[in-house]
């Protein structure tokens, strides 16, 4: 477009927009290097130190500031995220596969599934807590919380797979069937490798959403805290820079995860390309 002035103005605006997005996180990261234990969660930085990082790992002499209960919470959150990832990806792939054929009630089924990501977490969490109360079931992160996490992440996996399968060339499958390969083997050998990048994305979605899920978790989990619940616990008390240091570390962890995803994605694409070249030769 020739409107160069407009383009420049919008470019500057977008830069400011990115500052708005990142500003709080940058400030938080800077303040995580505040001196401890008397340094507060605000400017100025009295002295730069990694005290609060040490504090997280219990490497500092005890003070009145309680350490964050992250160790067990982290393990729980990771296990929960893996469980959620597996189940919601499987459900997402199978139901998206079902949607490739037109069937009666497909609109109903579509909205029923998508509803899972639409309904505010606090509502599903409340409903689940009420049911657990009425039936006398104990609430646990691996039970009541887990099923709600799947309710939330499965629609994302489903939509990702649906988008992938929409662009899927059916003729390769048909070729395989007509050569007498069983449907199960066709899925394993032909369909699955082709949709694998989508499956990977669905898994990433499910894992990160569950790992960070909070509003569904609050009512549905019992005494044992997951990571987000441990952070929420600090809201009601005074905030110390140890929470900031923790925020920096979890962010780095997420980036590592993202890096793994990118690497796997690259590998799977390269493999697909190699297979294609072999077939041509």
């Amino acid at each position, binding site marked *: 477009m020739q409107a160069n002035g407009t383009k420049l103005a919008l*470019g500057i605006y977008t830069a400011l927009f990115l500052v708005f997005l*990142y500003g709080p996180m940058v400030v938080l990261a800077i303040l995580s290097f505040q001196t401890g234990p008397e340094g507060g969660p605000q400017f100025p930085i009295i002295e730069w130190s990694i005290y609060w990082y040490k504090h997280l790992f219990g490497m500092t002499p005890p003070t009145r500031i309680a350490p964050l209960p992250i160790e067990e919470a982290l393990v729980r959150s990771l296990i929960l995220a893996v469980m959620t990832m597996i189940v919601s990806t499987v459900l997402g792939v199978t139901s998206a596969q079902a949607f490739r054929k037109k069937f*009666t009630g497909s609109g109903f089924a579509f909205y029923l599934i998508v509803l*899972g990501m639409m309904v505010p977490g606090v*509502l599903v969490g409340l409903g*689940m807590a009420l049911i657990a109360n009425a039936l006398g079931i104990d609430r646990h992160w691996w039970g009541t919380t887990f*099923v709600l996490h799947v309710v939330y992440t499965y629609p994302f996996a489903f939509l990702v797979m649906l988008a992938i399968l929409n662009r899927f060339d059916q003729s390769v499958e048909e070729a395989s069937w007509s050569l007498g390969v069983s449907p199960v083997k066709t899925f394993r050998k032909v369909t699955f490798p082709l949709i694998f990048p989508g499956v990977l994305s669905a898994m990433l979605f499910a894992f990160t959403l569950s790992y960070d899920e909070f509003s569904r978790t609050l009512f549905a989990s019992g005494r044992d805290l997951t990571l987000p619940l441990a952070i*929420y616990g600090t809201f009601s008390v005074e905030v110390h820079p140890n929470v*900031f240091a923790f925020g920096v570390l979890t962010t780095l962890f997420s980036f590592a995860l993202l890096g793994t995803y990118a690497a796997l994605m690259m590998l799977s694409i390269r493999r697909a390309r190699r297979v294609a070249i072999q077939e041509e030769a």
Partner: protein
Amino acid sequence: MAMTAATAEAASADRSAKKMPDRTFWLLAPGVIWMVLFLVVPILMMVYVSFWTQTTFAITPTLTTKSWMTFFSSDTYLSALWTTIRIWLIVLAATLIVGYPAALFVGLFVRNKTLQTVLLVLCVIPFWTSFLIRVLAWRPMLGKEGAINLILQGVGLINRPIEVLLFSELSVIIGMTQIYCVFMVGPIAFMMGRIDQSVIEAAQDLGAGFWRIFRTIILPLSMPGVVVGAIFVSVMVLGEFATSAALSGRKVNLLGNIIVTQVGSLKWAFAAVAGVILTILMGIVVAALLRVVDLRKEL
């Protein structure tokens, strides 16, 4: 009601099974059953419990509308409902105003595919930080000795710190806008990217200025993105309670906060009433937005 939903589902599944002797039914059944059991049933349970009898120490399944009457005759609850609607509308407008120009730039003006992807990824990266940490990150920004006040004082724009920045409705709105605006930017930028460049060129050749092109071509074609973004933002803001808990210092009570407090004091029936009202509110909003755009077609 649970029965009707279940039988309707069974009936539709039956019909489809008869039409096609393939595995559609078996592929779909696990997901549908999961959603009915763990999504539909809990919500119906919430509706049911909202009519239970609440006493100070216990709740009994004797049906009554007392909790509903209490809700609608209480200033606290009604003002929470109002605050929820007000904050939702303000945040929705704010995310649109803040996000649209950025989406316009990324989706339409950046023609280099690599740069476009980089910018979009930059927008998404903050989402790999825990939601609660992102909320909390606004505290050292907005506080009396926070970064914004320090910078403004340093530049000399103000000589006394702005106190209304933190622990106010404004802080909640600022926080929510930053956290949710990307859900607006994404869908809009996606729609912009789909606009055929030749249509714009044709308009230019015919002598249309930027504003005219924007009004008659870009804005209408980006509307589905705006609606999808509005659905995301609305759903998330309506169910919010953490941001207001962390940034308002208990001054701003949303319906979500009411639910959390009531559950905390084991007033399940009141929590359920607030929950049902929130569900109805959300249902109206999403249904209205879905009338404008068909979500399935936008995939």
